[in-house]
């Protein structure tokens, strides 16, 4: 039983790392919390669902479409509102409220477009025979989702540490002003970071039907909160910390669901509050500002 829970926790941990990574990347670059993060993940889920129902394609095929569509969406969103907000007298709070409004709009449009029923992609789409892993058997869809998550995390690592744009992105994360001083086009770097952030969320969305049970237009706010908990555990603004946060959360969730299932829903919220109050810097990294 413990072996099963541990390995399931690892699979889910990888997945939650991917689900939260985009939120942290955006936070790191812009110092704002994308309250619509979960809603973009939901849109990604519906895109994959659409491809499945229309063309019978499994969610792996949705990934290229997700990346292209949401990269664009992120860049457009950035230039439409962010520079204007950063110039206002209270950018943190105003952008927070604005993104909250955006999240309401996305959810409403999704309800109008897709209806409010819960939907699912059958997890037998990759074959109905379970996969054996670490001596335990798991649904294939879990293993595929976790593998995609691991690859995406690796790609983000390579991007941040082994590409010119990645160096610039990390410079902006360290200090927006200093980066601008060294001649980095901060707006361009930030816009791309928002695009990458949304693309990561949407990619995670493609597999949410397997990992979160079902998809519906109202799933966004819960995912935003869970993702926020994951990045707070890891540490805000540190994309690699997110992987640690995701694993801690995934393992915690699986242990709760195995041994105290009726209390499992409390986990992300309790973790979030406790870490914010006791160790706001997360398990890795520096302190965030406090009032």
């Amino acid at each position, binding site marked *: 039983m413990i072996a099963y829970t541990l390995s399931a926790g690892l699979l889910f941990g990888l997945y939650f790392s991917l689900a939260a990574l985009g939120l942290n990347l955006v936070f790191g670059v812009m110092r704002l*919390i994308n309250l619509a993060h979960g809603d973009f993940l939901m849109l990604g889920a519906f895109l994959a669902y659409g491809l499945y129902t229309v063309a019978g394609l499994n969610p792996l095929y949705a990934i290229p479409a997700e990346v292209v569509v949401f990269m664009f969406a992120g860049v457009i969103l950035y230039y439409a509102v962010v520079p204007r907000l950063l110039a206002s007298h209270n950018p943190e709070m105003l952008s927070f409220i*604005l993104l909250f409004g955006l999240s*309401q709009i996305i*959810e409403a449009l999704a309800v109008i477009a897709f209806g409010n029923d819960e939907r699912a992609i059958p997890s037998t789409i990759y074959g109905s025979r379970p996969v054996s892993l670490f001596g335990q058997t798991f649904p294939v869809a879990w293993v595929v989702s976790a593998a995609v998550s691991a690859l995406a995390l690796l790609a983000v690592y390579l991007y941040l540490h082994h590409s010119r744009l990645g160096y610039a992105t990390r410079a902006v994360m360290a200090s927006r002003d200093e980066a601008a001083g060294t001649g980095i086009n901060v707006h361009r770097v930030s816009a791309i970071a928002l695009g990458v952030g949304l693309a990561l969320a949407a990619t995670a969305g493609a597999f949410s039907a397997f990992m979160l049970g079902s998809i519906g237009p109202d799933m966004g706010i819960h995912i935003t909160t869970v993702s*926020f908990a994951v990045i707070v555990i890891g540490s805000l603004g540190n994309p690699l910390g997110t992987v640690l946060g995701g694993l801690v959360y995934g393992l915690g969730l699986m242990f709760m669901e195995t041994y105290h299932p*009726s209390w499992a829903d409390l986990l992300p919220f309790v973790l979030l509050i406790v870490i*914010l*109050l006791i160790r*706001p810097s997360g398990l890795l990294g520096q302190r965030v500002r406090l009032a």
Partner: protein
Amino acid sequence: MPRGVWFSVGVVLLFVVLPFVYGNHDLLFSMMMYLVLAQGINVLFGFTGYLPFGYVGFFGAGAYGMSLAILLLHFPPFAALIAGAAAAVLVALVLAPLLRLSGAYFAIASLAASEVLYYVISNPHLTSITQGPYGINLAAVYDSSASYAVMVAVLALALGMVVYLRNSRTGLALQAIREEPVSAGFAGVNVVRERTRAWLMSAALAGLAGGAYAWHVSVFYPKPVFDLNISVFAIVFTLFGGVATLSGPVVGTLLLYGLYNWIGISQPQYFQLVFGVVIVALVLFLPNGLVSLLRRVGANVP
């Protein structure tokens, strides 16, 4: 006479008179409930800059505090209502450390706190105490006119609280903190104490509203009294009208909740869209709400 008293009396009288000419008392009741919650958000956000996303947690705490005082302790309804408010204030005291967090972190942490409260209260293992997910039944004390009257009184209290804040030293101190916390501290304002006071006042209002609501509907499940949409509505109404004013949340609630019930009856799916667009438009074009427009044209609004 302090500014805003006549306005408040007018609003309260409106809800005393309307039941005699308009039959859907539940709609009037919900309208008052949102007026109270919007003013509660106003007390905290308008005067301290803290935006409590999880404000509904206090509402739910009030509803459950009231109900459990009746079911377990056999309180009479009025005493139970006080117990409901006390429960909300108690929750606020426990959560007071959240005020150490800044803006957006506070907002999300308070949301998480209301979810914690919901999952604890609705947990099946606590069924013998809270009725768990199976909900509350107060049919034995159901009294729609008395609970309506109580909500009118709570509304009067909420408006009175904002009138007080706008005319007292506490209110001025709070606004100073909101604008410049550091220099307010230097000027001898006890930042932590004043802020905590606004937090507790705001929680008490939501607790009273929740208690009155529980009494009025008398049969409810945990989900509806911890529904995040209650926070969302109250926040949007307040922002729309204009924060840190008396009339802003009132105008915002009457207009938007009126619209909600008007559209809501035939085309509800478009309502959330309207809300979202209103929020985005406000942030981009009118950060101080509708009432600031009236001010701009020279009206002296409370």
